[in-house]
Each structure stands twice: as structure tokens, then as C-alpha cells.
């Protein structure tokens, strides 16, 4: 190996890995064609790479790796819109989801009507307008002791003040 050969050592190594840049390749190949020693070195290096790869093939990773990763991934928190979106997407993909959703909507409508009828059947609680409230009227029109008496007659506790009315 002469002095000029030393300048090709890195390039020969790169060529053995098919990693030589296009610009340098012609000069290196020309040198290999005229220098048997460098050519032997190149062949040795390429054989070594092939030998290493053949002797130690890639292994298949265990499927357990993914299972272990998956078990440690954080559970995603979806917003309301994302949940609605995924629900709609599921409905589009799976007809069963549509049927279930339709049944739930129908059930909600029917139960809503039923509840409405129950509420209609019950008498509405009597609501006084402020001015018509007999206790307040009595409090405003009459003197303090008689208003107490009125309230007492009506079965109300006369000592409970109505806030803001005096």
C-alpha cells in the first residue's frame, strides 16, 4: 500500500457499505481497478459486512412489548364535541349503534310525554302576585299589632318577618 492508497481508506470503507457519494465513486473505482492491494482490502471489508449480517439476522420483537406500552399509555380525555364526533363516527360505521341511539331517543321522547302527563294531573301550586298576597296586604294596610293578629288568624307565624316589606 503506497502513500496515495492511504487517501482512499475511508472511501473504500464507505464503498463497502454502499455509502460512497457519487462524486467520489469514479476515482475510487479507478484506483481499485489498478491497485490489487486496495481491491483486496475492499473485498475483505465487503465480505466482512455480508458475513456479519448473515451471521446475525434481525430478530422479531416480542408482541408483549406493545402490550406493555399500551398498558402504560395515558387514557385520552375527550371533550364533549370529540365524544359526540366519535359517537357519530361509530354510528356511521356500525348500524347497531344507530339502532341503539334511535331507540334511546324514542324512549326519551316517550318518557318525556309520560312525565308531562303526570305533571298535568297534579294541581298547580297557587302562586300569589306580590300585591295580592293577603299577608302583605294586611301588613301594609293595618297597624302593626293587628297585622300580627291577622297573620296569627291565618295560621302563620306572626313573628316571622317578610324581608324587605316593611
Amino acid at each position, binding site marked *: 500500500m503506497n502513500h496515495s492508497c492511504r487517501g482512499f*481508506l*475511508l472511501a473504500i*470503507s*464507505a464503498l*463497502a*457499505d*454502499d*455509502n460512497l457519494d457519487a462524486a467520489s465513486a469514479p476515482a475510487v473505482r479507478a484506483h481499485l481497478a489498478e491497485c490489487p492491494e486496495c481491491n483486496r482490502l475492499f473485498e*475483505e*471489508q465487503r465480505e*466482512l*459486512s455480508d*458475513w*456479519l*449480517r448473515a*451471521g*446475525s*439476522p*434481525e*430478530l*422479531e*420483537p*416480542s408482541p*408483549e*412489548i*406493545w402490550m*406493555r*406500552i399500551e398498558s*402504560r*399509555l395515558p387514557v*385520552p380525555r375527550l371533550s364533549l364535541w370529540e365524544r359526540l364526533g366519535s359517537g357519530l363516527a361509530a354510528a356511521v360505521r356500525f348500524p347497531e349503534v344507530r339502532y341503539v341511539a334511535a331507540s334511546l331517543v324514542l324512549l326519551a321522547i316517550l318518557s318525556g310525554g309520560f312525565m308531562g302527563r303526570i305533571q298535568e294531573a297534579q294541581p298547580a301550586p297557587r302562586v300569589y302576585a306580590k300585591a295580592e298576597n293577603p299577608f302583605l296586604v294586611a301588613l301594609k294596610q293595618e297597624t302593626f299589632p293587628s297585622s300580627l293578629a291577622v297573620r296569627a288568624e291565618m295560621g302563620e307565624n306572626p313573628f316571622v318577618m317578610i324581608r324587605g316589606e316593611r
Partner: protein
Amino acid sequence: MPSEISPDELAAIVKRAQEGSAADFHALYELFVKRIYNFILRLIGSKEDAEDLTQETFLKVHREIKKLRDRKQFRYWLYRIARNEVYQKLRRTKKVSEISLDGEEGPLDWLLADEGMELDPERTFLSQELNQVILCALRSLTPKYRDVFVLAVFQKMKYVEISRIVGRSLLSVKTDIYRARLVVKDHVKTYMGRKR
């Protein structure tokens, strides 16, 4: 990189994974797990450690993927994470200073590469012996040489890509691979000499 996917397709998958798509994260795992696992395995030498570190690598990818700005750099970024995980592990277990030159120590469970295949005893023995020689040759390299050599020879990566992963200049990578090759060649020659 797996040849069946283009850089643009990969960038699109990465983008969706960054947006939180679990399916796309799984797709990234499927695309790269074999290469990353084998890369780690050759650096660390133990099947069990390689599985653990592959797991930690992808968990870190999941945690950090939103920070990756250039999606086309995903592959190099992934390898860098894997490499850092290996280095951390080596530092923790102080294996860096305990590189065995005779190959007599350390776990060699992964040498049974063909455990699913039925080989005759002689072939199994030869296969294991060959693997052991290769492992010892790799162990004889310093981590600096070992990762570039594994990436170049076993993963068949371009030197430019290796330089991006290890963060060293192209010339430095070329030189390190050349030197690593000389060390490995000596090791293999010694083994061949002993055989004769």
C-alpha cells in the same frame, strides 16, 4: 426506513400521532419497532434489556412527539431517543467500563436467534457460535464506534443519516466506521485463526 412508506406519508402519520391519534402512534410503532429493537439489541447485547429499552423508547416518543417540529426528521429523532435510552442504561449498569474483550460474560440469550426454527444440533451450535463471535466483536468496540458501526453495517443506513442520528460530522462518522471495521475484522480474524 421501511421502504413501503414515503417520507410524506410518514410525516402525515406523525402529524396525526401528534394530534393524539392512538391508531397512528401504533402505526409508527409497527413501522419502526423491528429496526429499533434490533438496533438496541446489538448495542446492549441482552434480549430482555432490548425489550425494556424498546418499550421505554416508544413511551418516550409518545410523551414527546408533540415537541417534534420537523416531522420528516421523525426517524432520526426516534433513533436518537433509542440511543440515549441505551446510553442511560449502560451508564446505570456501568457496563461502559466493563466491556468484555473475551466475550465470556454478559447475557447471550439472544444468540438463539433461530429459536422458532428447527435446526439440527450442529447447525444450531455453529449459528450460536457465529452469533457469539459477532457479539464479542461488537462488545470490543467502544460505544462511540459501536452505534455508528451497527447503523452502517446492520441497519444499512446512509452515512449522512447516521451523522444526523449521532450528531457528529460526516467525516467523523466515516472515520469511526472505518476504525470500527478494523477492530471487528481483527476480532473475527482471531476467531477464524483459532478455528483453523
